């Protein structure tokens, strides 16, 4: 059992934290209010080799492990949920599956630009009428000579409007259930019949684009099929296991950001002639935050470490995601409370963490679905 992070990991965390404090924190609220995707920040992340952390060096990545990736994601979440979410979707959902399931030629063409940060990627599973029951999808891919014709609508797709590639889940064999789903690489710039039909206004995370996308007789060549026909669902399960570790890390970061804001404020704010941190009620809230964050971080690091060791992380990644997402919402809510009226204003960060944290209990499987997964793991 080793609780000390290796030197490379500590140094990376320190550097990313410094970058986040200097370059992201000052604009974190502004980009939410402007609903602006901060392309310049992602260019800077690309320059610092952050957009391909767990991707092989052969394809422009850093070759780091899942633990390193989790640390980077947490640090981004500590200052901006939007940037953290777009980052995590890019890495876990849009890049990693190409590395895991793609041919060398596909990796060369589609993974390298993602890992080098030339553009962001996107991953499209959810549909307007299929969310938690994700395999029950209507988007269809029909064979057409040497390619496929795509038709359907995908909902709530992170990064779709800014992406250079989208991994699309579609039905290739309508009678086959789970085994009838396949994954395709879509080029949103050049594939005719693709369009972004809506960009959603949201409760939070408004600097991270969430899109409805439509495929209307969109033809793609057959070399865009990722893996084999019918493997799409198995790939999805594997992808989400890694993805959930990153959502757990992102949630831990949101909680950490809210906690730091509350702690600092509580030591400075005075009421009844003393610092409010001296009131048991306030102190206890902050101690609770610290306890929950430590717990969620431990689960996240354990899940990441088991992932790196090649173990089955179905249970632990789901548990980490469930725990950390609830931690982030609870801690952010209490942070608003600690700041009182100021906590309710947009001049202070806790309200932003509170808005952003709520998504963590919904995306990549709702908390209800995590409990379903965990119950199944217990044989219940």
């Amino acid at each position, binding site marked *: 059992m080793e609780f000390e992070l290796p*030197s*490379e990991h*500590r*140094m990376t965390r320190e*550097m990313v934290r*410094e*970058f986040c404090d200097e370059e992201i924190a000052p604009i974190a609220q502004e980009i939410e209010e402007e609903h602006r995707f901060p392309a310049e920040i992602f260019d800077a992340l690309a320059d610092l*080799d952050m957009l391909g952390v767990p991707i092989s060096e052969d394809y422009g990545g850093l*070759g*780091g492990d899942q633990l390193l990736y989790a640390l980077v994601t947490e640090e981004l979440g500590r200052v901006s949920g939007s940037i953290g979410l777009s980052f995590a979707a890019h890495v876990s959902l849009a890049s990693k599956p190409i590395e895991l399931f793609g041919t060398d030629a596909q990796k060369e063409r589609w993974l390298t630009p993602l890992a080098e940060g030339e553009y962001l990627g996107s991953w499209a599973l959810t549909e307007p009428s299929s969310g938690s029951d994700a395999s029950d999808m209507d988007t269809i891919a029909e064979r057409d000579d040497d390619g496929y014709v795509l038709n359907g609508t995908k909902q709530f797709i992170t990064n779709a409007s800014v992406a250079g590639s989208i991994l699309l889940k579609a039905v290739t064999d309508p009678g086959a259930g789970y085994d009838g789903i396949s994954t395709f690489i879509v080029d949103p710039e050049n594939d005719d019949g693709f369009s972004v039909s809506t960009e959603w206004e949201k409760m939070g995370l408004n600097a991270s684009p969430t899109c409805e996308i439509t495929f209307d007789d969109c033809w793609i060549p057959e070399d865009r099929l990722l893996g084999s026909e019918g493997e799409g669902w198995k790939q999805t399960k594997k992808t989400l296991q890694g993805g959930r570790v990153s959502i757990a890390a992102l949630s831990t970061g949101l909680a950490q950001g809210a906690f730091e804001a509350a702690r600092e404020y509580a030591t400075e704010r005075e009421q009844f002639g003393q610092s409010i941190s001296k009131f048991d009620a306030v102190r206890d809230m902050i101690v609770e935050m610290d306890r929950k964050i430590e717990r969620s971080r431990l689960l996240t690091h354990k899940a990441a470490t088991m992932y790196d060791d090649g173990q089955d992380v179905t249970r632990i990644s789901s548990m980490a995601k469930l725990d950390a997402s609830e931690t982030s919402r609870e801690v952010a809510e209490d942070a608003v409370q600690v700041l009182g009226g100021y906590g309710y204003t947009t001049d202070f960060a806790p309200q932003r963490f509170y808005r952003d944290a709520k998504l963590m209990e919904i995306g990549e499987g709702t908390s209800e679905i995590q409990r379903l997964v965990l119950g199944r793991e217990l044989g219940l």
Partner: protein
Amino acid sequence: MKILVTVKEVAEAEDDFDIDGLDIDERYLEFDLNEWDEYAIEEAVQIKEDGDDVEVVSVTIGPERAEETIRMGLAKGVDRAIRVWDDAFADVGMLDPKTKADVLSAVVEDEQPDLVLTGVQAGDDSFGATGVTLAETIDFEWGAVVNALDLDAGAGVASVHRELEGGIEELTDIELPAVLTIQTGINEPRYASLRGIRQAQSKPLDLHELDDLGLEESDLESPLSRTAMYEPESEGDATVFEGSAEETATELASLLRDVGVVEG
């Protein structure tokens, strides 16, 4: 060409702290690279990137704790690092600039650099004298408080801007080998890239003890020692104006009038 950059890990105290004996209680300290040294490293790495066959070596006098800070320099492009330490240093406590210059001069002797870059000062002790003292000790030319540097390696000349008192700048040419003490703002220090951090894990960071440098414990005897540590009484309060430029300018104007700086 070889550039030696002297660097130091310094302690920075939180806003509120307690004093423990002759020092600030460690609980309130955070250790990081001295700010001026960030600029010295960046300057050296830029020279390396612009020229060919330039080696950048960093040297620090510091305990094992400093290694990660020193490694961050390696991540930003320093080729290798030297850490000078020995139990004897821990016993000495405070090193004055002359003692430090003596130790560093032994490293200069080994390395034979063409250019030595130091920070103008260290954020903790703030002597601001080590660089120049080192130059005197090793008999190099020197320029202090350099805020612009144009190096002609072929001709062996560094054209520098030096920041003097009262906003005056001196432009001067300094012949190599030389020591330049680097001022903040001379460049924009980079963030280490993740790949840089990765590569830094396997770059050399060698420990030199006193023996290795041909020094003895008696060489560390310093004429200075710290006798007390206390927080000075603050004699006045700072007024911070918050708000738009118009609002704050009006507030400032009325304050200047009130205290009699401006009449009328």
